[in-house]
């Protein structure tokens, strides 16, 4: 007892610092402070002013935030962001999982070929994807319209020009682009499932569906989690697809946070308002991060102990 007490008091007196350890963390920390922390402080400061450039800033208090609450486009932006996350994350995961399952478990030859084929959209530049799909969605002579007409149907579709479906058209494009990523992550996950577990399921007479349900899906928990995290990150980052395909239109119907910030800040030169939008958006992202860490873990790092 006494010995332990002495030991802790000695430790308290001489708190040792591992200088080299700090040096290893330093580069990451520097980047963080200059390019994340400082910009966050800067944009928060800028959000309580009304300004177009740094030389003519006028204090505006919370006016910008009050404007946001009154802004009718905000409803559309929130709806679109939520839709984006709720559709892309599960759909990409489900299709990606089944592709990975079919490729890894049901094929004897040609695995590399199929993996490569499904991954090609991911490797294609996002602007290129946006332009191709924009052209395919075109009314009159876009690919979809041509196919519909050649099937003898007299329907005209204008996906991106229709306010109610424009956002779904873009989400569909995003799913096409990123499903290959989910597939490759599941391919990696499936390769980690021990053979004897699959074997055991088969000996117990499990059908393919039961095998998927009770062996594959639970064993891939880590992959589901990373895909959820990356899916949300990707959804929040969305800019190029919307900017190129509809530029947020028609009438703000497909606006996402990024495109709206761009419009307000750089097109309309309302930097104060755009900063306030950024702050709101950053808070939203922080909230999602905290929910994610709380419920799914990611922060279980110090478990290995401080000894």
């Amino acid at each position, binding site marked *: 007892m006494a010995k332990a007490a002495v030991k802790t008091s000695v430790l308290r007196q001489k708190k040792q610092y591992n200088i080299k350890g700090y040096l*290893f963390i330093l580069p990451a920390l520097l980047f963080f402070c200059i390019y994340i922390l400082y910009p966050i402080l800067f944009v928060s400061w800028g959000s309580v002013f009304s300004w177009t450039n740094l030389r003519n800033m006028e204090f505006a208090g919370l006016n910008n935030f009050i404007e946001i609450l009154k802004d009718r486009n905000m409803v559309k932006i929130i709806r679109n962001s939520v839709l984006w996350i709720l559709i892309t994350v599960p759909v990409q995961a489900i299709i990606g999982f089944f592709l990975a399952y079919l490729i890894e478990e049901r094929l004897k030859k040609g695995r590399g070929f199929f993996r490569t084929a499904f991954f090609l*959209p991911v490797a294609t530049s*996002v602007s290129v994807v946006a332009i191709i799909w924009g052209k395919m969605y075109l009314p009159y002579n876009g690919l979809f319209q041509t196919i519909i007409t050649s099937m003898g149907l007299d329907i005209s579709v204008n996906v991106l020009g229709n306010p109610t479906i424009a956002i779904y058209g873009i989400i569909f494009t995003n799913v096409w682009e990123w499903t290959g990523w989910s597939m490759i992550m599941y391919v990696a996950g499936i390769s980690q499932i021990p053979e004897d577990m699959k074997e055991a399921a088969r000996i117990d007479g499990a059908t393919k569906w039961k095998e998927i349900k009770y062996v594959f899906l639970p064993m891939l928990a880590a992959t589901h989690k990373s895909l959820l995290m990356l899916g*949300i990150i990707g959804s929040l980052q969305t800019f*190029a697809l919307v900017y190129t395909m509809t530029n947020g239109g028609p009438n703000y119907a497909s606006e996402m946070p*990024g495109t709206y910030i761009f419009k307000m800040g750089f097109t309309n030169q309302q930097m104060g308002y755009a900063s306030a939008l950024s702050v709101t958006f950053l808070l939203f*992202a922080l909230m999602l991060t905290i929910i994610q860490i709380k419920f799914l873990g990611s922060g279980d*790092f110090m478990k290995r102990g401080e000894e």
Partner: protein
Amino acid sequence: MKKHSDKICLVILILVMIIFMIPLLYMISMSFRTADNMYSPSLIVEGMTINNYVKVIKENPNLIKNFFSSAFVTVSTVILVTICSTMAVFGFSRKNVHGKVFIYNMLLCTLMVPISGLVIPLTQINSKLGLIDNYFGLIFPYVALGIPFAITILQGFMMAVPRELEEAAIVDGCGMVRLFVQIICPMLRPGIVVIVIWQFLTSWNEFFLALCTMTDAAKQTLPLVAQQYNGSYFSQPGSLFAVLTIITIPTLVFYVLVQKQFVKGLTAGAVKG
């Protein structure tokens, strides 16, 4: 019986793949067409020509520079993110680094910080530092925003490194730097593969900050260039698709070449999220 179901699976895969390939095949097919049969829905039409390619290559001498801009920005970002995050993760695992939990949690909170939320301050910082039209005006922010995710991925692998291995190395007189380079880095390799690929894709595709930072036509990255062609070749889809194909092919070839390494690296260790 079993063979029968496997065949059905193969057929399903082939069908899905064909549907998946339509947009890329469409792009390539359109790039070889003349204005006359532009909108025929078949893959191959009469009178296909390479004139579109000849034309856009002649008209766009900057294209090769843009390609190198993209490559330079992406490769530098990937290298810096990898170095900084592996070092940080190693630093976090050391004893007597007080306050590391706080630093780690702070980084973790910015895991999902979207670049769109920071574009306004980042462009202001870039213009103050004179980094407008400078590659580092893109590279530094990309690195900063890439580090938190890289650290969370690598942390899972760092935790799996057996303590005994490190202790054995230290007993054998291995210094901290050597321990990091020769023991820890190889152990983190599967995680590094994931972050390299992810970082490559995000930097290669980043559009918003590049749009606000790069005004010099010769220094612009490929996503911006593609976007501009969409405007300038609006009425000439053949030329537009030719230039898009030129932009796309190098990355596709690159991916096909590294595909084996990539999958091998990924499957060498579970992805711990």
